[in-house]
Every structure is written in C-alpha cells, then in structure tokens.
C-alpha cells in the first residue's frame, strides 16, 4: 500500500501533474513488489504565498517538454529536410549511428545524414507504430518503431521497411540517435 505524497507549489498544468504521477508510480512499481493498483500518488498543492525556502518565497520551476514530443518533432523536421529547425533540438555533442557493418555508421552533423541518404533513396517517410520512454536520472531514452516508405533512386516506390530509432534526450536536447532498419534489404530487393 505505498502512498507517495508530494508537495508542489500551485501552478503546474494538469498534463505535467499527470506525467509526474505516472513516473512516481513507475518508480515505486519497479522497486517494491507492490501491484500497480496498490500504489497511490497524491499531490498537496500550496499557494506560492504559503511557501518559503531559505527565507525566500519561491515560484514553481519549469516543467520539461516530454522527451518523446521533442523526438517526434525532430523526426518530422528531418523528413522535411528542415535541418536548421531540426538542429535546434540537438545537443552540440550530438552523435547519430546509422546502419553499417562494424559498429554502424557514426555521423555527427545533420548534413552528413543527408549525404548518407543521397546515394540510397530519393526520400523516406516514417509510419510510426510505437513510442516508448525509459528514464534514468536526467536522461530520458525514447524508442520509436514503425515502417519506412519512400522512393528508390530510380523512382520506384517502396514501403514496409521496419525501423527502430533510439534517442537519448537530456534537458530538452537530443544527445544521441541510434538507428536500425530493414532499408538495405528493401532497397536491394527489386521493385
């Protein structure tokens, strides 16, 4: 019957409070052998005027944008080849690892991905099937799976190439992207 009570300064949106409650529930469920139904989370909200720390009144801190929202927006921008907007979501030390033999193909600049794609296909679009978040400390790991469709260099269409992308997101910036897919198999097969 674990009960988690958390004091918050009033002002966080309902969406943020629901997200926080889900994560507190997950932390308990992954630590104690308690059924999910037995885990209770409750927030005590206090007005800012009823709250002081270090002799200083405080206001609610900002909530982070959900890591999966950032990732899905990044993927859309990359599909549209809007590199400048996509770049605003990545950390300066951003690394991408795309399919390839011997530990994959490591890229550090979004332009390198465009160059990597150029000899392979005309364009590619994602149909997303699942989005999962895993988290530890300040890093949220986002997994996106689904299928790829698009056009080969000769203009013939393809579809149904399975993909999975793994992202590490910290402080609203993508630090790392790892990509696996069946694209080579699909592109090698006759249209």
């Amino acid at each position, binding site marked *: 019957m674990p009960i988690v009570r958390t004091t918050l300064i009033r002002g966080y949106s309902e969406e943020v409070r629901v997200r926080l409650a889900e994560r507190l529930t997950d932390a308990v469920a992954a630590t104690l052998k308690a059924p999910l139904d037995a885990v209770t989370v409750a927030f005590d909200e206090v007005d800012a005027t009823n709250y002081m720390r270090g002799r200083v009144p405080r206001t609610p801190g900002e909530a982070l944008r959900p890591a999966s929202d950032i990732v899905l927006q990044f993927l859309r921008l990359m599909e549209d080849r809007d590199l400048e907007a996509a770049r605003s979501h990545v950390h300066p030390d951003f690394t991408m690892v795309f399919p390839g033999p011997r530990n994959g193909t490591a890229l550090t600049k979004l332009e390198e991905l465009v160059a990597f794609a150029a000899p392979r296909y005309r364009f590619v679009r994602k149909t997303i099937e699942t989005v999962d978040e895993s988290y530890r400390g300040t890093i949220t790991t986002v997994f996106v799976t689904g299928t790829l469709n698009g056009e080969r260099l000769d203009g013939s269409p393809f579809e149904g190439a399975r993909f999975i992308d*793994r992202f590490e997101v910290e402080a609203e910036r993508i630090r790392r992207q790892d990509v696996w897919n069946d694209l080579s198999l699909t592109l090698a097969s006759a249209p």
Partner: protein
Amino acid sequence: MSVQSLANAPDYRIHDDAEIVRRYLETSMIPDPEGAAAFVAPEFVVTFTGGRDFDHPRGPTAFNAARYKWVKKRMDRFDVAPGNGETVVYSIGTLYGEWPDGTPFKDNRYVDRFVVRNGKIVKMDVWNDSAEWILDPSVSRS
C-alpha cells in the same frame, strides 16, 4: 524507470522483466529454443529482420543456423519502459560469431524489443546490421 547496466555483470540488479528477457536471450544463445520457450506466452510472436514472423523460439534458431555458423550476443544494456499492464524491455548490444564459411565477425549492432506481460514475453522484434555486412562488398566472407 530504466535499467541501464552491463547485462553480463551478474551482480547488477535489474528490473524483473528485464531479467526475464536476459534469461530468455541467454537460453536462446546456447542455442536451447525449447528451454527459451519457458519464458514466452502461448501467443508469442517474434518478428525478425526483413519482417519474418515466427511463433516459437525454434523459428529464430533455425533462421540463425542458416545465416551464421554460430552467433552470440554481447548484451551491453537494457532499457525498460513501464506501461499499463505490460513492460517494454529493450536489449542493446552487438552480435559476434562466424559466417557460414567460418569467417569471424563482431561489432554487429543489434536491438531487440520485448513486450512482457505477467512475467512472460508476448512479442519480440529483432533488428541488427547483418544485412549491412552481407550486402557490403568490402566485407570479405570467403
């Protein structure tokens, strides 16, 4: 909740559902598909690279026997995503082994996605870079 650990370090405490996945993978790699079947639910489906579906751990074992002389996984980490009534567990690392002609390989990236319900694996999805090696003319396998 995420457990990001060296799966091969036996003392490291990992999420219960990640432990089920780790034991399934270790048993599969023996290879002991009948033993691995103890960790899967009756409705189990595994989707391999290229979208090939199998309904028993025997399927991947037979597929691997045709593709590799032998293959094993170096499990680098698990990522765990909790959900309502199920847990999604990701195993990430590299494959190593020998191609059918005996040429060794290693550093072949893989990720497996597992859906675990009530302590049993109901779905497994497999991705790896083996096709990249097979299609790469600079990779000598003869």
